[in-house]
């Protein structure tokens, strides 16, 4: 990154009004502030995904791989565009986006379409939307803005937590009611990360965890039967080897039979012979683990680890509070996707419908993840921007 461009950009932002020529120059300068290493890692993960989708379709490129490539290209373009939008604009958009997404969630509740046993989808003008996915991002943005604009952001008094609590509770309860326990947990965890990073006292989390443990027995009674079954079969897959335990057992077989080096591309029997149905979506990690073994599986995990590590470094480099809270929240959200998916596939967690980010086949997930990563990069691109507290306050 040259000195000139840095100067140019800092010039542009210290001044409140940005001339159009400078704005253009600003965009050009911002491109150089992007972390190309990070983008490279995104592309690497996606490329591994294409290969696995190619294999999961029995060597048919057009079945999953090509549509996925198109989506990835669009998604990456959007992500980079998002990364270059002025962070102030993002912050301004945080509350409306949250409110909008919440309205969509209520819309799902009222008019939603039932798919896969839960009410998650909303059809708007022929496009299927899953508002709960968008909420994962919106909640982080909203909370980041809230904590950014808090007058006493050093101390974070308890009474100032009432609004965040409401902000979190509303979507979580709505999503729980769909019912989608996994997404609700992810939304809650993402939001709590922002709160934690914003400086909410550690003891509150400790108490919170203790409280959660205390209400567990009650919560258990509120779970739907299929959710209970998932937890039970997770604890003991053999109790229902052909029903709910089937996925866990078959996916463990796929992983284990891959061994150290794997069976080779398209040589995996578990997914190719349909013992693992729908292996192109949530269980795509098994294809990797079976065909490329521990070598391939840990390789992909390592790329994720580097990405997430880099995400923390990027978050840490952001000077404005909103940006780093947003970055930390989104990075954790990304981490949660990876963790929950892989932990589920390798039998460390109950089966919850969480895709492997950037790899699993599916448009909504791909776009949501890239949107989140775009926002993460946005914070990084605008790491040197000073944002005053007042800019975040409503009105």
């Amino acid at each position: 990154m040259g000195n000139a461009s840095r100067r140019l950009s800092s010039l542009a932002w210290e001044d409140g009004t940005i001339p159009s020529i400078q704005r253009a120059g600003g965009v050009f300068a911002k491109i150089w502030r992007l972390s190309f290493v990070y983008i490279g890692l995104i592309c690497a993960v996606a490329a591994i995904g294409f290969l696995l989708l190619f294999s999961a379709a029995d060597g048919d490129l057009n079945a999953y791989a090509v549509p996925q490539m198109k989506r990835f290209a669009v998604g990456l373009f959007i992500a980079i565009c998002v990364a270059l939008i002025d962070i102030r604009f993002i912050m301004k958009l945080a509350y409306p986006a949250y409110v909008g997404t919440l309205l969509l969630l209520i819309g799902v509740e009222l008019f939603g379409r039932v798919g896969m046993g839960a009410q998650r989808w909303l059809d708007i003008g022929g496009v299927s939307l899953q508002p709960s996915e968008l909420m994962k991002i919106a909640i982080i943005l909203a909370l980041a803005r809230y904590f950014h604009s808090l007058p006493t952001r050093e101390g974070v008094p308890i009474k100032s937590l009432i609004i965040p609590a409401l902000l979190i509770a509303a979507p979580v309860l709505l999503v729980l009611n769909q019912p989608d326990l996994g997404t609700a947990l992810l939304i809650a965890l993402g939001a709590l990360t922002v709160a934690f990073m914003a400086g909410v006292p550690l003891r509150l989390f400790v108490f919170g965890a203790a409280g959660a443990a205390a209400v567990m027995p009650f919560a258990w009674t509120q779970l739907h039967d299929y959710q209970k079954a998932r937890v039970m079969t997770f604890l003991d897959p053999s109790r229902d080897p052909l029903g709910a335990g089937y996925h866990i057992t078959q996916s463990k077989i796929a992983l284990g039979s891959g061994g150290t080096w794997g069976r080779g591309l398209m040589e995996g029997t578990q997914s190719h012979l349909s013992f693992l149905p729908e292996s192109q979506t949530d269980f795509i990690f098994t294809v990797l683990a079976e065909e490329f073994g521990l070598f391939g599986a840990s390789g992909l995990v390592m790329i994720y680890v580097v990405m997430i590590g880099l995400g923390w470094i990027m978050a840490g480099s952001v000077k404005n509070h909103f940006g780093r809270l947003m970055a930390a929240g989104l990075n954790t959200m990304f981490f949660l996707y990876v963790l929950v998916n892989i932990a589920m596939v390798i039998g460390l967690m109950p089966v919850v419908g969480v895709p492997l980010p950037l790899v699993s086949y599916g448009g909504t997930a791909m776009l949501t993840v890239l949107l989140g990563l775009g926002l993460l990069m946005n914070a990084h691109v605008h790491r040197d921007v000073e944002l005053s507290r007042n800019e975040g306050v409503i009105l």
Partner: protein
Amino acid sequence: MSEEKLTERFTRRAILFGGMQALAFGVIGARLYQLQVVEADLYRTLAEDNRINLELLPPVRGRILDRFGRELARNQRTHGVILIPEQTNGVEATLDQLARLVPISDDVRQRVIRDVGRNRSFTPITVINDMEWQAFAKVNVNSPDLPGVHSKTGYRRDYLGGESLSHLLGYVGYPSENDQQRDPDPLLNMPGFQIGRRGLERQFDTELRGKAGNRQVEVNALGRVIRELDREEGEAGKDLVLTIDANLQDFSAARFEGETGAAVLLDVANGDVLAMASTPGFDANKFATGISTHDWRKLVDDPRSPLLNKAVQGRYPPGSTFKIAVLAAALEAGITTDARKVMCGGHIEMGGHRFHCWHRFGHGMMNFKQATRESCDVYFYQIAREVGIDRIADMSRRLGLGQVYDIGLPEQAKGLIPDRNWKQAVYGQPWQVGETFIAGIGQGFVTSTALELAVMTARVANPARQAVAPRLVVDPNDMMPTFSELPVKPWIIDRVRDSLDAVTNHPAGTAFEHRMMWQHQEMAGKTGTAQVRRITQAERDQGVLANKELPWSQRDHALFVGYAPVDKPRYGVSVIVEHGGSGSSVATPIARDLLIAALQRDSGAQPTREGAPVREQEV
């Protein structure tokens, strides 16, 4: 709090959080290592189990052949039609189309639709199992217009020998759950597989069955075969070669002309069972294709017991044929000599009981040859009493009575040769002399099977004076069986043979009327008429009822045992006609004709086939 402090707290918390996340990845890494390295072998095995199915290839069942290689049981190709639902344009429409070519009943239609509903769409469903060739050809010609309809060929057991062989061959049928538990062969669990359920089919089931081949196929989670990985051909069942001559077998059953009974025809030199008839028979093919309840009940309820193999399962009082053994025992004991004569006055008194001779007015003075020839009961009462039951029993056993022979038939009964110990053990009472009288003429406790009687005849007739044992199945490793010497002195046998010669060839002999007069060949033998009811004194006084006047089940059994030719015996026979009446008039002609048939077939050139046993021509 300054911005620096804020940043510091953020950084601190970021490191804490990042650390926790790294830890989580550490757990994932450890788990991957556990699954993919430590437990890899286990999961590799499970994956193979998942993927590979072992499919059995059923072997073709061995044939059953007669001594000349004629097929008695074979496997008939069956032609059928199957349907693969996923390939059709609708199952119902396809059945409609098919119904225009071959008749399809409503039952069949409903079963097919039900089966289609129960199975995966790629599972072949049988529409017709076995159909006429013409109908089959019609379906095949039209197959391009019938997508999803395929022809299927299989095997069905086919019995060619007719009803005369059904008792020997038995039949095949579907295994019961019991069979499946007892026999670990996975073939038994194959749908449609049949095992031997009776007769030789049952006894030699393992040999006839062969060994299943198998193929390893890769299947997907739905069970659809993706490809064949490995194929191991099985071993077809071994053919079973019998000593039976199918022509003689056929003839012997037919010669009964509707009478109920059994006949065994032996080669006296080597014990080969050339014919073993039991009438009436049944159609084994009905069993192979699944017999109807109606037909089954009819067979079970028939008083003439068609399902019973009377030649080895039927226990009959041997009647006067038993006198052969009594005579031999008496000769050996020195009680009967050439000079010894006994007076027959029509009956003999013993302990207040009167034992009658069949000749009401008595035979007069008799020596053993005359007594045998005319079957004088009083003579045999007398000598049996003197010899004693134990010595008679001993001789009977040496001659082959009271034994089960291992000829490969699973269902066999053993005739009863009573003695003192037996009576004590079974009844807890001492043997009565009167019982010896009765036993002396082959009545009372004494019973034997047609096979035992044939063996006794063969032992008497065997030119090498050997203790011949019967054989029904040819062992390819032991074509010519060897026998021990008959433990009866030759001079005794010679006298017995002389007496038997007189029965048929002396004008006073009981079988003279039906003696053999065929190409200067003669036979020897002994008649027997076994009473199955008690004749009261009152009836005797009024005149004993003739057999014709009695209901069938109370008539006498007619028996004859004999051999031919007299001078150089080759064939031995025993004939029992249940409730047939007199042995001399009913059983003798049958026995004679069987012996003639055997001699006839022996005199001409024998049809022999490759692989069939070479008949021992020398005596």
